[in-house]
């Protein structure tokens, strides 16, 4: 397969993936027991007639498939409908929430991947047992400590007992917690990969020439490990989504995660659908870009 075909395949796969996730979400939202009319009916005491009328107005009496087609054709034009609870266009609500999540996710990602790289390179360059221990520690931490538990601990210690940081809206604590979690997920594999790359003949040559450890690590070892680094940063993204959900709820950040959860509790499915669609499209997009880069830099894959 030549490179163009390989890239096209990656793009096509991304499109199909996004479509599948959106369809899955749509049907899961529709089979959920108790629709919004039931919820509003319980709260506001709508009569049976009013409920029927409301279902018709919302298109809920149509067959599922035609509801789906209608929704997709509107969504493609950027129209995700109106929130059933707040009577606002969903796209406006998304546009308000998206920057919050993006800023949070970008900062966490940069901190996490940066920390992982720094630790892995330093451990490789200096072959330090102490740094390897630290890497193991962060790895186990990320597996065993749920991020929201770390969040509660941080709130208790730094906000309530020490009074240093605000609970609401502050980005420092959630970014460090999610960044650490991200770093822990990837740092161990990165370290293993670099350990293997150090054994490569050209690295041994560089060492024989007497280059400094940092120079060898950055100029000779790192490029050899680039493909796996790409794949690993793709993995870190999944953690970022779940992390955004919990951290936004815990620290009251008005992002996509808070929006989605409030919508789930309120059965506000236009928002659930739109939010998951945005998340899915973003993830698939990034994964596809990573996939393409991967194919371009690793000739074994193309």
């Amino acid at each position, binding site marked *: 397969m030549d490179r163009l075909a390989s890239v096209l395949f990656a793009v096509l796969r991304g499109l199909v993936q996004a479509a599948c996730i959106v369809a899955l979400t749509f049907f*899961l939202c529709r089979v*959920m027991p108790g629709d919004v009319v039931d919820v509003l009916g319980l709260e506001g005491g709508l009569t049976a007639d009013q409920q029927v009328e409301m279902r018709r107005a919302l298109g809920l009496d149509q067959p599922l498939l035609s509801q789906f087609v209608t929704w997709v054709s509107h969504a493609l034009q950027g129209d995700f409908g109106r929130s059933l609870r707040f009577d606002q266009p969903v796209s406006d609500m998304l546009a308000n929430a998206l920057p919050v999540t993006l800023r949070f996710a970008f900062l966490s990602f940069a901190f996490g991947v940066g920390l992982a790289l720094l630790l892995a390179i330093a451990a490789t360059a200096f072959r330090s047992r102490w740094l390897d221990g630290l890497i193991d520690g962060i790895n186990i931490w990320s597996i065993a*400590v749920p991020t*929201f538990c770390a969040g509660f601990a941080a709130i208790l210690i730094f906000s*309530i007992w020490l009074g240093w940081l605000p609970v609401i809206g502050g980005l420092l604590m959630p970014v460090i917690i999610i960044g650490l979690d991200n770093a822990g997920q990837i740092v161990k594999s990165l370290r293993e990969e670099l350990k293997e790359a150090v054994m490569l003949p050209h690295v041994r040559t560089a060492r024989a020439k007497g280059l400094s450890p940092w120079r060898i690590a950055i100029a000779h070892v790192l490029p050899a490990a680039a493909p796996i680094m790409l*794949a690993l940063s793709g993995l870190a993204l999944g953690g970022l989504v779940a992390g955004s*959900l919990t951290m936004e709820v815990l620290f009251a950040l008005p992002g996509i995660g808070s929006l989605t959860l409030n919508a789930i509790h309120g059965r506000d499915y236009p928002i659930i659908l739109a939010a998951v669609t945005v998340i*899915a499209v973003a993830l698939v997009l990034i994964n596809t870009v990573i996939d393409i880069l991967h194919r371009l830099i690793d000739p074994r894959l193309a």
Partner: protein
Amino acid sequence: MSAPPIAVSAPRSAGRRWPVGVLLATVAVAIVALAGLVAPWLTANSPLDQDLLAINKGPSADYWLGTDHLGRDIWARLLYGARFTFGISIAGTAIAFAIGAGLGLFALALGRWSEATLYAGIDLIRALPGTLLALLLIVGLGSGTGPLIVALGISFAPLVAYVARAAFHREAVRDYVHAATSFSGGRIHVLVRHILPNIVGALVTQAAIILPRCIVTESVLSFLGVGSSPDAPTWGRMIADSSRFIERAPHAIVIPVLALVVLTLSLSVLGNDLRRWLDPVRENAGEAAEPAEIDPQLAMPR
């Protein structure tokens, strides 16, 4: 981890080693499991009864670990919580294996086409992080303990399916499989009688590694308000319930958080040790043969 590396050069042939960490982890898990089993003998109080005269109280003679915001006994909730936390996660892991390994191995044994179809299907939803998938499934299935278990199982099933595939392909090229096939052994026969016994170790190891992740995911879902029902208080749910009272009753959060972290940490340590012991191939050789293949371990749903 922090212990000085004294016994590094000790002979390994002396049989199974019991490092301090593994020993501590075993003890911790045993205590939690036992506490869950004999909970009614360790406390006279019910985990659900509310004492409205003792709300958010610290430890006392009646309530050894104090009470939460509804006056429920934290000690009793901790004990019964061990039962529900373990029970729900073990059930979720079991379902993940029934679906992931069962379906995966069946498709693998039947041949290339069924394998390609099943794994293409899994690939399509793979971009969705496990926590989000579980969240959406609960949206569709309704909340409560039953749907929670099913959602946990389904969201971890892809991971199991990938592990099953890696293990299957590792064995499928061995001579004994060729021999069995050339003696006209049917595909399912070869799978069940010849391959399965040789990959059981890898699968059991995987179960031990998934269990703590299942516990973490369950607690995250509880924290997000879509976890177990109120009458099945898991530790995650205890944390979630008390989260709004973190300032007035920090003990109501700190106690279940500590319990949860100790349990997941111990289970992770045990899982890693089990992997070293039962599945040494992967530990020594790694899975670096395929350039694009990442350890399926890493692709953990979060």
